[in-house]
């Protein structure tokens, strides 16, 4: 599904060249999930933007299903941390925005969006504005918008980082269900070790800027019943802590 070879990215900010990514290679099979973790400012989001086709690598190449990523590709959906929902649109308008942009007529939009909102427990909020929702509800609306387009690849940039711990764990479970039930390939950028282990069938550990691959950890038990409480879960968490240089 995703194949990245020797990716490097340098961008220019106020006439200074900043190297964001250096020599990143990884691959991800269809239907699996990748959690990208690393210190803040290490280029995790830049990597995601390359996958979304919002940016091009300076060196190296990236392929999604054998093609270069294109921002307009309807098979790829991107969820950003804070700015995904528009406060001037209602829940329904936000959720149907992707369909609206792609030219679906009003009737089709309703037929697709309403069942998704119902499934995500947002049915009673269709006419609310985002500011009237809790943080967790807002993220679910963002997810609803992405699912409406029936994507094959879902990219999420720190989707849960602004939520409180309880909501966060609930939504991690929720994202896990969405991933499993919709045949998605999932890429998730996070700075939470538990979240990476809970959601990534592969975990890409990145170094400080310029982001390099420190390690790619296989996490085959992801999604299994009671995984969060299992010793394997904690082993992988400890390994990540070590790799990221967190001292216990």
């Amino acid at each position, binding site marked *: 599904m995703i194949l990245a070879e020797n990716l490097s990215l340098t961008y220019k900010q106020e006439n200074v060249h900043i190297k964001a990514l250096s020599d990143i290679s990884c691959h991800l099979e269809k239907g699996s999930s990748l959690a990208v973790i690393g210190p803040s400012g290490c280029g995790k989001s830049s990597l995601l*933007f390359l996958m*979304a*086709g*919002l940016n091009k690598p300076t060196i190296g190449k990236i392929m999604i299903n054998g093609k270069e990523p294109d*921002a*307009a*590709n*309807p098979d*790829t*959906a*991107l969820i*950003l*941390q*804070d*700015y*995904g929902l*528009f*406060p*001037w*649109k209602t829940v329904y308008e936000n959720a149907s*925005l*992707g369909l609206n*942009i*792609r030219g679906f007529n009003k009737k089709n939009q309703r037929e697709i969006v309403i069942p998704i909102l119902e499934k995500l427990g947002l049915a009673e909020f269709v006419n609310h*504005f985002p*500011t*009237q929702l809790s943080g967790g509800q807002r993220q679910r609306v963002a997810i609803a*918008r992405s699912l409406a*387009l029936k994507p094959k690849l879902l990219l999420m940039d720190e989707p849960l980082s602004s939520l409180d711990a309880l909501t966060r764990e609930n939504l991690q479970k929720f994202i896990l269900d969405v991933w499993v039930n919709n045949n998605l390939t999932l890429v998730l950028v996070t700075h939470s070790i538990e979240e990476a282990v809970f959601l990534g069938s592969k975990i890409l550990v990145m170094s400080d800027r310029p982001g390099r691959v420190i390690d790619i950890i296989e996490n085959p038990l992801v999604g299994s019943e009671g995984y969060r409480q299992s010793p394997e879960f904690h082993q992988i968490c400890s390994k990540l802590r070590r790799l990221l240089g967190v001292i216990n």
Partner: protein
Amino acid sequence: MTYGSRIIKKSVEMTIAMLIIIGLWYALAIFIKNQMLPTPWEAVTEFFRIFRSTIWVHFYVSAYRVVVSLLVSFAAAVPLGLLIGREEVIDRFISPVIYLIYPLPKIVFLPLVFLFFGLGDFPKIFMISMIVAFQILVTARDAAKGVPQQSIYSMTSLGASKWQIFYHVIWPSCLPKVLTSLRISLGTAIAVLFFVETFATTEGLGYFIMDSWSRSEYSEMFAGIIGMSILGLILYIIVDIIDARWCKWQKL
């Protein structure tokens, strides 16, 4: 609070505010005891007495001039401002020009404008529009510049075209600021209206006020002032209504 009860609450507040203003005016009129400042009662009776015969015609002409000016400047300045704010190339060429012209008091070109466009309504509308458009233009441009890049990424990843990004994101996110600038420019627009109506015209509230003054008809002059105030108030309320309808999300 329901929409109805909010309107009632606002009306009550407005009535009290008006009574206070009238009270102050009354006290001042008694204190000064000069025929140049009639009491509110005299001015208001005069306003109603000559409303149908005189004031209405002038009110209508003034309202026409200022409303057309506001519509023209809004329609021209908002799209242009948003475009300049989002398109770096255009911004690089136009913004220095705006920077130089903005602080210039455009009103000093009044003689030239009259010279080029004659003495009808057009030069007046042109003058007001030019002044108001600049204020709206600068606000719209800066508001559009402030739209977070993340919002644009979100739209691009949904497959949005440039036009769709303007329609769904840039325009609605800048609208509250643009309406605020429109509210501020209303005062300017009416001030400029007054000024341009004191030249080479026999219609409009500005003319009527100056004419009454020269005839020493102070009650009439105040009736004209009341007319101008009502014009301003109505326009202000209209902007408020637009704001309440189009920017509902801001008031939650």
